[in-house]
């Protein structure tokens, strides 16, 4: 069968995560298998339930967590009208999915690798820790505000030790920043690899420390996207131009969907 990049998949189930009080806001979405030849953790899919109709034009980008011969799994958090509508799908509903899109995270078997996740930024690391051939080289720090059981941490914990920092009072943020700095500095001293995914303020902090300690770091950006295929130029981010001959450093806008979402920290202007 020829692998198709855009397919209509069927919802197998939608499983709520965590006890956040009234209506659940965190979900695992399980869809029928898309029949891709391959994918890399850090890549994403554009997901558009048929229930978006004409009212919600854009699909929503979601990280790929797990794919096997039976299903594709994504995790998502309800934020606005798109994810709200997505949280209303039922088993049997149709969803348009295109992907796998973008470039995934670097994977270096023997390199000490630090995974840094903020909130739903944990999603791509579920696949990453399962794919990594030498998980003992991985360690992970996860900062979050809603309770831990809202996130897919169990399947990560099976493979690697996961350090979590629950942010409940303002002082916790200082703790998180302190830990990020310490971990990034240690990793840089071992000439390791740092991979980060999370909200922009979180990534900015990681970016700052990565540059400060000359860590080899990759960041996965979550810019808003309309097309996911590099066509609309809506998702762009500022990137340093690699032009050795020029004395003055210049920048250009690059599409996060096709040139990222994973970028080397050195290249980014955040």
């Amino acid at each position, binding site marked *: 069968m020829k692998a198709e*990049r*855009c397919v209509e998949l069927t919802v197998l189930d939608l499983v709520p995560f965590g006890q956040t009080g009234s209506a659940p806001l965190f979900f695992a979405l399980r869809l029928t298998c898309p029949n891709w030849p391959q994918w890399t953790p850090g890549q994403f899919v554009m997901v*558009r339930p048929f229930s*978006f109709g*004409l*009212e*919600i*034009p*854009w*699909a929503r980008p979601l990280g790929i967590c797990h794919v096997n011969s039976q299903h594709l799994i994504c995790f998502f958090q309800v934020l606005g009208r*798109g994810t709200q509508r997505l949280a209303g799908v039922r088993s049997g509903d149709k969803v*348009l999915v*295109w992907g796998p899109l973008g470039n995934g995270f670097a994977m270096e078997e023997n390199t000490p690798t630090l995974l840094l996740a903020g909130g739903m930024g944990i999603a791509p690391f579920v696949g990453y820790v399962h794919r990594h051939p030498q998980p003992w080289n991985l360690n992970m720090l996860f900062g979050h505000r809603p309770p831990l059981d809202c996130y897919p941490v169990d399947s990560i914990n099976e493979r690697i030790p996961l350090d979590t920092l629950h942010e409940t009072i303002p002082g916790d943020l200082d703790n998180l920043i302190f830990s990020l700095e310490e971990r990034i500095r240690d990793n840089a001293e071992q000439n390791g690899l740092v991979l980060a995914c999370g909200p922009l303020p979180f990534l900015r902090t990681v970016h700052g420390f990565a540059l400060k300690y000359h860590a080899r770091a990759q960041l996965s950006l979550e*810019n*808003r996207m*309309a*097309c*996911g*295929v*590099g*066509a*609309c*130029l*809506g*998702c*762009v*981010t500022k990137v340093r131009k690699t032009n050795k001959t020029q004395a003055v450093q210049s920048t*250009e*806008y690059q599409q996060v969907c*096709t040139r990222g979402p994973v970028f080397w920290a050195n290249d980014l202007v955040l």
Partner: protein
Amino acid sequence: MDLHVTLRGKRQTLQLKNPVLTASGTFGYGAEFSAYGNLSSLGGFIVKGLSLLPRQGNATPRVVETCAGMLNAVGLQNDGVEHFLNKTLPRLPWQHTAVIANIYAASAEEFASLAARLDADERLSALEVNISCPNVKEGGVLFGQDPRLAAEVTSAVCESAPHKHIIVKLSPNVTDIAAMALAVEAAGADSISCINTLQGMSIDYVTRRPRLANVIGGLSGPAIKPVALRCVWQVACAVKIPVIGIGGISCCEDILEFIIAGASAIEIGTANFMDPRAAFTMVQDLPKLCARLGITSLDELRGSLKLD
């Protein structure tokens, strides 16, 4: 059913294998969609707006989703005409379908140089002149709001590109779109495409900030279809040259409505984002829909709006 379309201009004729084109800025340079369908099956595609020199585009956020539509203020980010001709165009299937360049400039003189640069290139079937971009500071929509300036740009482009079919793309952000259409027709345009985006804005009530860095942007998508239909109808009634309909088209039924209003061909824009297969699917579905409705020729359908 024969879907072939002939756009007979005053100077040059443009042949299309079917009426389905993709709209500038919503289809990249075509290659972005090659994984989702056969580019050669399209009537043609109109590439992202080109300028003489590279443009960085506007600050971010540049796009925001709205109800049944979206706003964009991309600001014509592109690598410039030389990069397009040398690096991008060779990789496009111009032998098999119409590749149309959409051009933007800040003055009539600059429009002329750009058109002259593209005129000799046999790989391009036509030029679409964007006198209607709401997202750039210089020129942009200004050319599209003043019939005198619009005519000036049109004749400059027509003179500089005598071998190309010239499509002039009109803005809906005017009081009388028929007057604009008549002005560019008189100035030599071979055909008219309409509409470009409608000016709009979006506000975040929590932060009290505009959702676009550029504050205002262009509205597109299903929400603008009624405006687009009205414009196409008014323009088609006013001019003799062919009209290409654009605005909110998301299925074959929409295409028929535009043809009935007077369009000879149509462009698919925001629908490409809703489903990357959209344009390809419409090419396949159009003859089936026509067969179901007993429509045997697009010529018979065009401008067939019944008014009594």
